[in-house]
């Protein structure tokens, strides 16, 4: 077992129950918020590019231009008139997702997975009346969920039906893969699966599970819940380690293409894997969080520094070269495959 090996090397200290010293964290290459902002976000992500990723309509249009698969848009609600007849606009759609186009952190997303008579049903089984639906859409239009409370549009799109391999690992909500990149080199990836506590959402600080994925192979290597390593899903009891994510190469290609199309230096790309359509680009995040390093058990610094050096050496590397570099250098110690 690799875990016991590292534990033997690293002697636990009494204070590890409460905190880590800055030098210990630096030793492990952990990146803090200040470091992320000052060294990676601010110099590489010019403010004007944020509009591309903060507005989902623009991101989607751009992604289609670059030949990426995205979830089909059913309709975009831009005015209160359409908001009032949303249930008619969606006639014949069995399942769909409603999102604010400028939302962040999963705010304001409503998933409907089937209809029951006049009403709609959420994955949790809660029924939603057409009135509730109209209301949710008007709230989105009023800017309740958007950054800075700006007026917003509501986007209604195809509900991704993830492969059973993935749905088995998540309590309700569909798990998504996040790939973090610097200068177009994938540096770290994780799968985020919801729990009963996170209520269908995949934000780790709300109690979702983060599953670290090996960049080279796409196999899950480690999982954390509330910052602590786990091996099994807290609600479902299923083993989370040693799972091979399907279409891994397509996912990496998609992620790197997102970097090329947005021009952002440091970004995270969220991808969902549909049972029939394969990987779909969901959104691009210009300020990806730091929990991914805990999910992988590796400080981001250890991966960002080699990329910075490589980028300085060869600033015009193409997509394939970048992926090859990442696969070669960011290989994790693989666990026994599950089953």
């Amino acid at each position, binding site marked *: 077992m690799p875990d016991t090996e590292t534990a033997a090397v690293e002697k636990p200290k009494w204070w590890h129950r409460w905190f880590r010293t800055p030098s210990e964290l630096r030793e492990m290459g952990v990146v803090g918020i*200040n470091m992320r902002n000052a060294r990676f976000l601010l110099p590489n992500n010019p403010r004007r590019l944020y509009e591309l990723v903060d507005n989902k309509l623009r991101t989607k249009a751009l992604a289609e231009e670059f030949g990426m698969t995205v979830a089909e848009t059913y309709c975009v609600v831009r005015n209160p008139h359409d908001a009032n007849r949303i249930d008619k606009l969606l006639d014949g759609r069995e399942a769909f997702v409603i999102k604010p186009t400028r939302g962040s952190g999963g705010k304001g997303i409503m998933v409907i997975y089937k209809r029951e008579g006049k009403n709609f049903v959420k994955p949790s089984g809660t029924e939603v009346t057409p009135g509730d639906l109209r209301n949710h859409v008007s709230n989105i239009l009023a800017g309740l969920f958007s950054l800075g409370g700006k007026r917003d549009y509501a986007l209604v799109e195809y509900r991704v039906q993830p492969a059973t391999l993935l749905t088995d690992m998540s309590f309700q909500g569909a798990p998504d893969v996040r790939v973090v990149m610097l200068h177009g080199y994938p540096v770290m990836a994780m799968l985020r699966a919801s729990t009963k506590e996170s209520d269908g959402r995949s934000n780790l600080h709300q109690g979702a599970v983060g599953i670290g994925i090996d960049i080279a192979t796409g196999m899950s290597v480690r999982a954390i819940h509330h*910052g602590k390593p786990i091996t099994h899903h807290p609600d479902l009891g299923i083993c989370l380690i040693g799972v091979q994510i399907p279409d891994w190469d397509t996912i990496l290609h998609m992620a790197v293409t997102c970097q090329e199309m947005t021009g952002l230096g440091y970004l995270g790309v969220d991808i969902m894997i549909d049972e029939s359509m394969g990987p779909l680009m969901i959104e691009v995040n210009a300020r990806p969080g730091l929990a991914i390093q805990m999910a992988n058990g590796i400080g981001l610094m250890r991966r960002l520094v080699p990329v910075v050096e490589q980028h300085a050496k060869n600033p015009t590397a193409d997509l394939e070269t970048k992926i090859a570099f990442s696969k070669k250098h960011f290989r994790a110690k693989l666990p026994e495959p599950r089953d």
Partner: protein
Amino acid sequence: MSAQSKLLTAVAALVAIGGGLAAYKSQKLGVPFWEDQRVDEWLVEAKISFVATGRKVTAKLSLPAEAAGEKTGQESGSLGYGYHIKENGDKLTAVWSSPEEREDAQALYYRIRFKGGLESGSEEIPAIGKPETPEVPDLPGSLGVAANSIVNRALSTSGDPDSIFVTLFRQINRENASQEYLLVKRHYEKMSLSDPNIAMGIDLLGMAGIPARLSYGVRLDEENSGQRPYALLEYYDGASWKVRDPLEPTKVPDGREVYVWHRGGGPLLDLDGGENSRVTFTVVKDRIPLARLTDLRESPFLISTILALPASERAVFRYIVLIPLGAFIVVLMRNIIGIPTLGTFMPVLLALALLEIKPVQGIIMFSILVGAGLWFRFLLSRMNLLVVPRVAACVVIVTLLMMLMGVISYQLGMSVGIKITLFPMIIIAWTLERMSLIWEEEGKHSAIVQVSGSVFVAVCAYYFMKVSQIQYWAFYFPEMLLLLLAFILLIGRYTGYRISELIRFKSFTNA
């Protein structure tokens, strides 16, 4: 130039300018750098405002006796008016006169500074010759009888003028005075004088053969800017004139609380060519000796001219200079310690509010208002209102809650309740809206953590702003804010861990 060297240049420049100015001020100009080296001086500003009626204006303001002294500084400010001080015996009068006709609102200023201390200007003045026996007012019918019996009773129980004065005013000040007092009191109140009680006291003292007259003072209270003259009473005890506060007849006025501005009878202000006149006073405690201040004002630093502003404008700066200090604490708490707050600068506003109210009361009030408001906000959310009407509804509810709290605490006899209106409403309404959104979106845990984080940061900022040495520097050495700015810029490039991250990553293990 790289970003790094630009930053370092800026920081070096700020430190050089800020530190240099501060050093120059304290070394060359002799402005005390430490608060405990300061000299307390009071600056009292009298402002005469009136509406000119289109004629030539002459205004005469009676001045305190100190104005004659060499050690006190005085000056007057008034554009286009001729100004001189007229001396008549030991009575001083400032005279302004306009060479041409004047119209519209006019303002004249007179400032005087003097050392703080026990002297209030109320020391006894020996009379030159015996003052005339006062005229006894004509009180009609039953009033005259009542007044006479009051005076006779006072004369029979107490012999000397001092105790007669005390006896009379104790009765006048009482809520449940005897029938006779009430009768006379009502008569004076009907005459619509500005100080019916004092007018009545002067007449009663006159009937008892004690000469008395109205005198004016200024309360040495920095908070109360633009205060009206404080009516005092001066009476003759057989040898000299004494000034007393009729509300506290037994006490000699304390030089730390009251400054006697006008004595010796006669009007405080004599105005010709204007109407609707009023005299207001603003008091500021100055910590720099006068001589230094003059140097400072003549020095070429624009920023030092804060000290040359009229006292009433300067009072505003007392709070404004504290805002950067609060902002600094927020930066420290968020970027170095990593305490989550609701919005970036909401804690600064909250801290300023706490400066007005006391922190414990302020926080209790804030919690009650936010708690109750949140509850209403959830009731509202069931009605599925649109965003803007919902925020507006929140504002209405918060207003009503504030009024309710004001009334309840007044009924319970707490004076805090009245001050509640000072609590910036907008902070509460905004906090409610943000908090309830976070509550719905991220759960109550995040919402409570962020609100308590904000309150904690606000309390830290409050205690930081409260340190008198820091207040002193911010006000008298505003260029030190440049040093603060340099420090904030440096924190802006801090890439180390936040303290909260040491805890967040405590179970980080290498795979």
